């Protein structure tokens, strides 16, 4: 398996993926314990402190009523746009290079959405009443306000969560069946249930193909609409810097951009730490992801320039004030750092040598996500600081509780992802097999671990 000269066979990928699920080394347990510990310490503990004392534990004030919680929420929803959207688009365009990575990318989507949902709860003043935002019949005879942009959020994210989980599950059914045959005990029971008795007959494949294609066709407009709707939380206000029609494409492009960078990070980690995966996640994947990053960076730069230009061209004093504050005000260092990481650094992807080297791409992807977070923070921070009435201008500095919760959210995501790697086959076996040549003639070996 170490010799890269031999192409991997069907049996090889089967063995590698099953092994990644069934065999667990001490390194994994250490990683899981660390992630879980950091999550509890940095995410849940400060959150409970905030629940007890009030939102005052965060740095939000008047007029800066939205802080890093909402910025993080939008950041995580943005990150979720990588997996499922990319996976669906590439499925419909029949591209081969998506096969090895899309399962983990879709998992990224799912867990980003879950983390984003917890950020909603952290952000609310009275989160114990969050169920009031859901439409359910109750004895108060009250329904949520469907005219509210925040409620479009609820419907869109609910649909997206359902759609993503269904999508990743449907794609994994054949792989669950394959892993079921090689495991024993409680794992065997779990995979038997999860695989629904899949046998791999031609009619089952045919149905799965059609269901999967229809789901992909439905999920693409859904994913585009989700982040547009999240952007309309801002764009439907009349805050000068936020009330822009460009926001929907701006957010969607930014989301796909940061999500793709997230996929690069995850691919690097999978490749490095799971035995055998370096055969399936190759330079070709990083090359293509790099090209995608470059294109998205150029589009994002264009949209950002348009926003600046139209704001300046309008001549409105509020727009000028907002722009001037964004570029040269209190948060100016963050703005220029964002430009550096988002618009300038990805230009390195023009060079193929950069795109096909693993560690530089990893560093670039992390930088892009840092820039992304800064952008989300600036959207919230600089716009609410300078609204119409100068007496109500203010500055916002995140508090320790907020910074800790941001860190904890990454740990929460890592924990969920680590659990995922042990339950789902993190590389889609049957799709990678489709890209390989059919196995050469060999004597049939008896299957290992077959339940009696």
């Amino acid at each position, binding site marked *: 398996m170490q010799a890269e000269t031999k192409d991997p066979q069907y049996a090889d990928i089967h063995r590698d993926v099953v092994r990644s699920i069934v065999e667990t080394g001490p390194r994994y347990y250490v990683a899981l314990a660390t992630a879980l510990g950091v999550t509890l310490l940095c995410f849940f503990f400060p959150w409970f402190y905030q629940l007890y004392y009030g939102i005052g534990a965060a740095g939000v004030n008047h007029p800066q009523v939205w802080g890093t919680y909402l910025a993080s929420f939008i950041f995580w929803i943005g990150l979720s746009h990588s997996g499922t959207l990319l996976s669906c688009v590439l499925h419909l365009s029949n591209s081969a290079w998506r096969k090895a990575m899309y399962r983990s990318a879709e998992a990224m989507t799912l867990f980003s959405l879950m983390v984003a949902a917890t950020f909603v709860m952290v952000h609310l003043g009275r989160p114990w009443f969050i169920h009031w935002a859901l439409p359910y019949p109750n004895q108060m005879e009250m*329904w949520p306000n*469907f005219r509210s942009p925040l409620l479009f959020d609820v419907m869109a994210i609910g*649909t997206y969560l359902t759609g993503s989980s269904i999508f990743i599950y449907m794609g994994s059914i*054949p792989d669950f069946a394959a892993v079921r045959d090689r495991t024993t005990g409680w794992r065997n029971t779990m995979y038997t249930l999860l695989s629904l008795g899949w046998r*791999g007959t*031609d009619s089952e494949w045919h149905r799965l*193909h059609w269901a999967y294609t229809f789901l992909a066709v439905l999920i693409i407009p*859904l994913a585009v609409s989700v982040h547009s709707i999240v952007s309309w939380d801002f764009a439907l206000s009349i805050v000068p810097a936020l009330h822009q029609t460009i926001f929907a494409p701006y957010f969607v492009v930014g989301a796909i951009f940061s999500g793709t960078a997230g996929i690069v990070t995850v691919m690097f980690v999978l490749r490095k730490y799971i035995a055998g995966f370096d055969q399936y996640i190759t330079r070709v994947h990083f090359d293509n992801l790099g090209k995608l990053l470059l294109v998205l960076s150029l589009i994002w730069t264009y949209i950002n320039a348009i926003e600046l230009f139209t704001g300046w061209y309008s001549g409105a004093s509020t727009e000028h004030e907002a722009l001037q504050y964004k570029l040269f005000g209190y948060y100016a260092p963050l703005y220029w750092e964002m430009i550096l990481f988002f618009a300038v650094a990805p230009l390195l992807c023009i060079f193929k040598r950069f795109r096909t080297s693993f560690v530089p791409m990893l560093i670039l992807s992390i930088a892009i996500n840092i820039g992304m977070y800064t952008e989300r923070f600036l959207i919230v921070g600089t716009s609410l600081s300078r609204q119409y009435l100068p007496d109500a201008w203010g500055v916002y500095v995140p508090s320790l509780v907020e910074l800790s919760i941001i860190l904890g959210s990454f740990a929460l995501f890592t924990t969920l992802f680590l659990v995922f790697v042990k339950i789902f086959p993190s590389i889609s076996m049957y799709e990678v*097999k489709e890209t390989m040549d059919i196995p050469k003639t060999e004597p049939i070996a008896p299957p290992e671990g077959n339940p009696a």
Partner: protein
Amino acid sequence: MTNFAVGLFHGPDSALTAAGTLKGAGFATPELMSPVPIEGVEEVLGEKKSVIKHFTFFGGLIGGISGFLLAAVTAVLYLHPTGGRPIITIPPFLIITYEATIFFGILFTVLGFIISARLPAFRDRVYVPESAVDKFVVTVACDDDEHFKRAETILRDAGAEQVRELAEED
């Protein structure tokens, strides 16, 4: 108890040839099990109709109507004037409708898949674990020993590496 003749092949082409020959020889429609979807099954075994698209369409329709009704009816049930907007506002409700369309479309597609693929399987059916790894398997129902011998001959002629006899509970 139905007996099945099961042939293991190393590649999809030989499996398809065997299936075609079996069908032509008058056996019941054979089933192909494989680790990856096989191209060209429909030419050999006949067109497959997919009912999933009807489920998706129906689901989308139901979703659209119920999404708009949810928003409009609840707005009228508890009158709550906000912002000088009408009680039944069209642009926000269209967004709700759009999301509900996709939501129900997705759910009904899954339902269609489950119904038409006849999953989950509640009884044990004939299955060869190697078909999930790297072998392409053809199974055909046989009534008696003589049928089985004929099937076995056809399978071996087409290049089967192994032929087994498996039984399935009815």
